[in-house]
């Protein structure tokens, strides 16, 4: 329906942002502007060329010379310098849209889980400024402000001061080990926080989940590997040749919740079901993975995985065997519908 190139709006936003920046600077270079906006130099050059020939129809409705922006063409063509010599219509930064302001406000709220961002006054002040700087009230999209975590705060400090840390870690196979690592980066994915680190025990880059870390100490030793020395993969979890494949029948809604494990999916028996192929390092944590999903989740293959889940559920049920047989009734409603 819409033949528009997807980037046109973004290009317009850049033109409207570049003009006030160049006016404020009076004199700048293509390289400076590109670095400031974090865009390729060519985008700056093209935009400057467009600005320089743009303007308003004017009284003559003919876009006369005086109705157009103008730049010092010699400086631009010969030295890559940008000097606006005549301006029309706009000279100030544009306001934010209600969606733009809301996106930054929600991002700020989310960051309040980070120790250095915990200053609610700073966050609150910024939210008020974004609200005043928006052309309409920011869209009502908000994120619960997380409580700063003490362990996270210590790790953050170790990352900044490039110190090694040591902690007790319980892995997905329920094995507990004391680990000594060079912390490189703190990552998060929704409500979970992770430490990307060089692990001295495994001699490699590993990802650790914050809520499986305990008894953390910062060691008075510099890190041996820096983030710039190693490659931190973009994904938190990497597939390995040793992975096993498990086929499950799950509710469609459950797919996004385990998308990092899903290798492929196909249509299930009904429109709301999906057959998914999962790649896992081992089947020890499989019960945990699928029972936590909404709706009914069923392992189809391999048979030993099915057996393992059945045994695991039986052992769990034995803790409740003195309860009366469960009626089909549901727990009473709570305030979340």
């Amino acid at each position, binding site marked *: 329906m819409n033949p528009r190139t997807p980037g*046109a*709006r*973004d*290009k*317009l*936003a850049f033109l*409207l*942002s570049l003009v*006030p*920046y160049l006016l404020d600077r009076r004199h700048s270079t293509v390289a400076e502007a590109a670095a*400031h*906006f974090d865009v390729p130099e060519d985008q700056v050059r093209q935009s400057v060329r*467009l600005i320089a020939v*743009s303007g*308003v129809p004017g009284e003559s409705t003919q876009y006369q010379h005086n109705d157009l922006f103008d730049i010092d063409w010699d400086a631009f063509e010969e030295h890559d310098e940008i000097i606006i010599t005549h301006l029309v*219509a*706009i000279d100030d930064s*544009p306001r934010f*849209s*209600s*969606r*733009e302001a809301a*996106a*930054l406000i929600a*991002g*700020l709220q*989310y*960051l309040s889980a980070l120790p250095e961002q915990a200053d609610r006054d*700073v966050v609150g002040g910024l939210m008020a*400024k974004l609200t005043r*700087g928006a052309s309409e009230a920011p869209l*009502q*999209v*908000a*994120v*619960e402000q997380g409580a700063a975590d003490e362990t996270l705060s210590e790790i953050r400090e170790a990352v900044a001061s490039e110190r090694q840390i040591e902690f007790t870690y319980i892995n997905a196979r*329920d094995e507990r080990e004391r680990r000594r690592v060079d912390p490189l980066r703190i*990552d998060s994915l929704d*409500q979970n926080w992770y430490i990307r680190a060089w692990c001295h025990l495994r001699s490699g880059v590993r990802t650790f989940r914050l*809520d*499986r870390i*305990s008894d953390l100490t910062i060691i008075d030793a510099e890190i041996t590997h820096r*983030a710039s020395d190693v490659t931190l993969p973009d994904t938190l979890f990497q597939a390995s040749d040793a992975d096993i494949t498990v086929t499950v029948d799950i509710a469609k*809604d459950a797919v996004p919740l385990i998308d990092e494990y899903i290798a492929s999916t196909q249509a299930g028996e009904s429109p709301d079901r999906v057959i998914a192929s999962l790649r896992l390092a081992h089947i020890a944590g499989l*019960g*945990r993975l699928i*029972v936590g999903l*909404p709706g*009914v989740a069923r392992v189809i293959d391999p048979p030993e995985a099915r057996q393992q*889940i*059945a045994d695991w559920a039986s052992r769990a*049920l034995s*803790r409740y065997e003195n*309860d009366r047989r*469960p009626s089909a009734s549901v*727990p*009473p409603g709570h*305030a*979340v*519908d």
Partner: protein
Amino acid sequence: MSDSTRAAPRVPVEERLFSLVLALVATESGLTKDAILSTVQGYRQRFSAGGDNASLERQFERDKDDIRDLGIPLETVTPPDEEGNSQNTRYRIPKGDYDLPEDVTFTAEEITLLGLAATVWREGTLSGESQRALMKLRSLGITELDPVIGVAPRLRTREAAFEPLRTALERHLVVSFPYIKPGDAAARTRTVAPLALVQHSGRWHLYALDVDIDERRTFLLSRMLQAPRSSSRTFEAPDDAESFSATALRDLDRIWEGNVATVRADPNTHAWFRLSRLHGSEAIDGDHFRLHFTDINILADEIAAFGPEAEALTPPSLRAAIVQRLTRTRSAHSDAEEAE
């Protein structure tokens, strides 16, 4: 795309949009559509005096939407004595409403923090919107401090219902969706006026006015069985003193605070470890934990997922919900007669 206007010299889209913004900011009394189409760069090349400009007019309608999407206050002014005569509708962008207010200024530290906040969104339209907001911030010419290194936060909106709801929220449209509560035999269609989207305990919720019962309700996006459908019906948002998102989050906090469960976990197991690190959990007695929750069914999913390592003690409804889940799982995996 067979219209003759396609043959006219091509002016890039961004040049046409930029020229339209400049022309509408420069005019005080506004420009009529006819004046815009016949004189503004990008339209004038395709304008046919006295001819059919229908496709150009449609182009203008889409361009207005795009410009407004960027937060630019494009106004229409109709002279009071000429209501109903759209030929005389004038368009303009009041400069005072276009410019960022002078007292909205940012320090280098604040710009740096906002830069990090923008990286939280890495996919979907929210990512594009936060990048555009950053671009506008950078137009202020403030030099950022070194980017915050060593932190890569990321927040996702995985529910398919999120985008349609955000659009409905923006346009004040009444929406409907089939909603299923755990234990309900079938989904029921809810028709609501969306007031806020909030993330609480890691899950996205819709705070809305249920128009059938005229009461406010909070819905979990993950329980909407299909993406919400917008109606053409708009609504007037109630005039609260507090923002809807703040009210929604406070209500959820209160529910969380008021709901308490006790859970026993075998020491030094994965379950014990996770429970002891859980936000708001309180260890009583080494292997007992007191925890808060907003939704008993979600908590039941989480505790059931601990399997044999943990056991819910109270409330009894939580125990029952866990037994139900485990029984269901066992029967779905035993190859003998499957009965539920």
